[in-house]
């Protein structure tokens, strides 16, 4: 028995997760934290729907409603969808390219802890005088006028977690370029890996404008600067530009990994190679590229003038083309296939019409002149929930069911999975379809109440009922997770039986070094190719040898903690004398721990060949 897989106490497990640099454990951390924030954001959504169930409702007050709607959007995008996407990228991508870990395991851990502390900081606002209340877009004039510290929490929390995301993006880019297994050429990479690659590039170029926007906001609110104060020469439209130069790529950052997950699922459960693989890759890259050219379609009514509006309208419409290519390629992947309706496949199948509905309203919104009507109404709310829930959330739920056995070694219950699928699907359409019409009938978004006799009653009530379906569905999913975790029936390498890519050639969950010997990749769907030739596993590309592994480290946690402390100092600097010392102390904690990391040599360690042979006999039998 090797020393690496001993039974540990609870304290040791926690310490292990606090210090881990293993991409699979970090994936689990992202999944848990993202799942937690998903539930928090979901509760906020339920409060919104309850408040709007009937006209003139008093469930929450106007000010609190604005806080809830802001935190719902911010939480769902930054603290739920992003980390959940990162969970799957971390869990699957290194396995798919045949790597033993990501390029920078230390930075991977740092990225997680930055996100986590940023998210906790943001949510502490509820207990420390009120949450941000200017919408997740936090447009400058309103967010500067907002009293209390809500917006400060938003600015600092997102700054910290955004830094974590940026680090993650760079890490994945380098991993995919440098760490692919022998034979894993770019055009043999699974589509989920491709979408991770493109998304990481988007993160690299989209997050810095947000960083700057948040910096400017922070300086304006906390240090007396005047970037957005028009009486001092400032200009609030700068914020709008920065926010959307980030914000539009951001939605592709969320949807492309979902596309990647669906591509894997369609191919797997149709038992068919992805139709038009190269054009799928091309479409992914093109969507990523065009994603940077269209931000001003969020600002059609800002008054940029007809030339800008027309250019951005046409550019936006162009995105429909690569997206359409993808939809048809998925359909034709299934065409002639052998479709098995597992829970992940049900989500994937339901995704197509749901996402098409969201996509076509996207084209309608792109039509600038007509958008003057849609803009900032429930039509927009319906549109982006169709693409984000119908696309991203379906993708994440599909991915959860699909990759659960690979991450945890046990399957989720299929029966409960299908129940939660149907509840979610029905609830989703019930909630959001009607909102298109509410918008067209004159209901602006972000209103805490509506008055009777304007024709909004029925639609809102239906929408609220739908939301309850989704809530029940998530509860069923949670029950499913708890039940199956308690039972913990172990599964083998390829529990779905139709696995195509490298991760299914490994035990579930894989050993911490992933591949004992790096596999030789001979084509797209590498594992499928071997299976079709009657082989049980991958052909190794190297003789058995020592494996170099990185050491665990507590430093990422401390670096993030330092920024977390400094953020409190920055926020309370103006009104409390302890603010400035705390700000400096926090920054010192961060900088000193960075220095420690820098001057302390960390060469990692080696797993010796003999231990690996040992493992083969006793340990991870599949």
């Amino acid at each position, binding site marked *: 028995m090797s020393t690496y897989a001993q039974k540990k106490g609870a304290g040791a497990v926690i310490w292990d997760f606090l210090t881990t640099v293993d991409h699979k454990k970090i994936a689990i951390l992202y999944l848990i934290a993202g799942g937690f924030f998903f539930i928090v954001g979901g509760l906020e959504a339920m409060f919104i729907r309850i408040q709007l169930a009937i006209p003139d409702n008093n469930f929450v007050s106007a000010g609190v409603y604005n806080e809830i709607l802001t935190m719902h959007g911010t939480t769902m995008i930054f603290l739920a969808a992003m980390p959940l996407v990162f969970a799957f990228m971390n869990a699957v991508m290194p396995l798919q390219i045949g790597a033993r870990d990501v390029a920078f395991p230390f930075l991977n851990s740092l990225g997680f802890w930055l996100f986590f502390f940023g998210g906790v900081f943001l949510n502490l606002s509820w207990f420390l005088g009120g949450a941000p209340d200017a919408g997740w877009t936090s447009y400058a004039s309103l967010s500067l006028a907002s009293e209390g510290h809500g917006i400060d929490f938003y600015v600092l929390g997102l700054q910290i977690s955004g830094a974590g995301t940026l680090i993650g993006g760079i890490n994945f880019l380098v991993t995919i370029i440098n760490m692919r297994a022998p034979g894993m050429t770019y055009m043999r990479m699974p589509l989920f890996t491709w979408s991770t690659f493109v998304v990481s590039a988007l993160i690299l170029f989209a997050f810095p404008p947000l960083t700057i926007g948040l910096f400017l906001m922070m300086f304006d609110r906390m240090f007396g600067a005047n970037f957005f104060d028009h009486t001092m020469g400032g200009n609030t439209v700068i914020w709008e530009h920065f926010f959307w130069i980030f914000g539009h790529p951001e939605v592709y950052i969320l949807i492309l990994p979902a596309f990647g997950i669906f591509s894997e699922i369609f191919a797997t459960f149709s038992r068919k*190679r992805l139709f038009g693989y190269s054009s799928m890759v091309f479409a992914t890259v093109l969507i990523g590229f065009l994603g940077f050219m269209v931000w001003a379609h969020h600002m059609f009514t800002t008054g940029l003038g007809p030339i800008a509006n027309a250019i951005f309208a046409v550019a936006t419409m162009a995105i429909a083309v690569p997206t359409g290519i993808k939809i048809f390629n998925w359909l034709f992947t299934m065409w*002639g296939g052998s479709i098995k309706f597992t829970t992940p496949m049900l989500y994937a199948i339901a995704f197509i019409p749901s996402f098409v509905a969201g996509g076509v309203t996207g*084209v309608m919104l792109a039509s600038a002149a007509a958008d003057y009507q849609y803009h900032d109404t429930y039509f927009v709310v319906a549109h982006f929930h169709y693409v984000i829930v119908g696309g991203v959330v379906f993708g994440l739920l599909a991915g959860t069911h699909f990759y659960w056995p690979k991450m945890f070694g046990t399957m989720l219950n299929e029966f409960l999975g299908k129940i939660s699928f149907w509840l979610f699907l029905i609830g989703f359409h019930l909630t959001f379809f009607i909102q298109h019409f509410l918008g067209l009938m004159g209901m602006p978004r972000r209103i805490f109440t509506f008055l009777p006799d304007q024709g909004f009653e029925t639609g809102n009530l239906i929408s609220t009922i739908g939301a309850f379906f989704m809530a029940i569905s998530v509860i069923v999913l949670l029950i499913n997770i708890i039940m199956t975790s308690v039972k913990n029936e172990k599964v083998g390498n390829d529990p779905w039986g139709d696995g195509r890519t490298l991760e299914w050639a490994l035990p579930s969950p894989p050993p911490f070094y992933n591949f004992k010997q790096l596999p030789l990749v001979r084509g797209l769907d590498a594992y499928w190719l071997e299976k079709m030739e009657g082989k049980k596993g991958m052909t190794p590309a190297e003789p058995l040898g020592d494996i170099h592994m990185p050491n665990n480290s507590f430093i990422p946690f401390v670096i993030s903690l330092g920024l977390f402390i400094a953020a409190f100092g920055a926020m309370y600097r103006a009104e409390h004398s302890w603010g400035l010392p705390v700000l400096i102390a926090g920054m010192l904690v961060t900088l000193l721990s960075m220095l420690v990391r820098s001057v302390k040599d960390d060469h990692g360690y080696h797993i010796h060949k003999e231990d690996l042979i040992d493992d083969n006999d006793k340990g991870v039998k599949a």
Partner: protein
Amino acid sequence: MKRLAKWRLLPLFAVMALLAGCGEPFLSALKPAGEVAQMQYDLMLLSTAIMVGVIVVVTIIFIIVVTRFRRKNDNEIPKQVEGSHKLEMIWTIIPILLLLILAVPTVAATFKLADVSPMEKKGEDGKTEAVVVKVRANLYWWEFEYPNEEILTSQDLVVPTDEKVYFELKASDVKHSFWIPAVGGKMDTNTENVNKFWLEFDGKASDEAGSLFYGKCAELCGPSHALMDFKVKALPRDEFDQWVAAAKAVKEPKQAETAQAQAGQEVFNNSCIGCHAVTPANSTPEQARMGPNLTDFGNRSRVAGVLEHNEENIKKWLKDPEAIKPGNKMTGKYNLSDEEIDAVTEYLMGLKVQ
């Protein structure tokens, strides 16, 4: 799966049925009541038609796929197809053509809606032929200034029907957005620059809507964003001219008639006049116009933009504005007894320009 597929078609029919007209005529973008709204509605119909076409194609393939290609036998291995250049060309080129069909009228409409040249054509007196309204959005109330007529009003916008009305939009505190759904799309009121656009109010549609369109703020602006409503009285040209003449005739604050109203006027002059003017002249600077102009208050359609216009509601509003519009700027600026509120209410109800 079949059930699922049929169920999918339902929304399609619903789109058709609902787009054909729903919502209230005074509020719904689906009941266009003017040239701008009509152009936008036509674009909506065009894009919906194209998109429904796309949805139909996807749905047909979708239904075939999920019904015909279910796994029947656990050992079957389908043929591994790489792709098809011909098919891929088809679903690249056809969408491009469809988008062009939408893009051309979109661009044309975008430019047409942005054409505010009549606003720039000023005569020697600095006035324009076209009707111009300067809209100033404030935390939860709207001010409408008529620079040609040199008057202003608040909350109830008065415009002539069947001609283009040009708007200059601006916010005095935070960003808002000016939107009259039935008459046309919105435009933001920014804090640092003036936005310009035009609308046209259709006479016939105005009659159907009871000459009163609902206007809304469409940009989150604070707690009472949902309540930042205004109303639009769209009048035939001659009635509009009469209203303008009547308003211009008010040079001095209108004197109260009854004893109680006179008492109210006194209270008003002591407690309220610092923010609220009762003459319509636009000569005071913007910064001094801190509250809605009340010259035509007696003719308003709503109290505070949201409550039905009657004495009871005025009293309710004056007593505790915070309960009605959280975060408004009037709360706590005055201290009136119940009797004083009654008196002021009576006085306010008498403020009418015609």
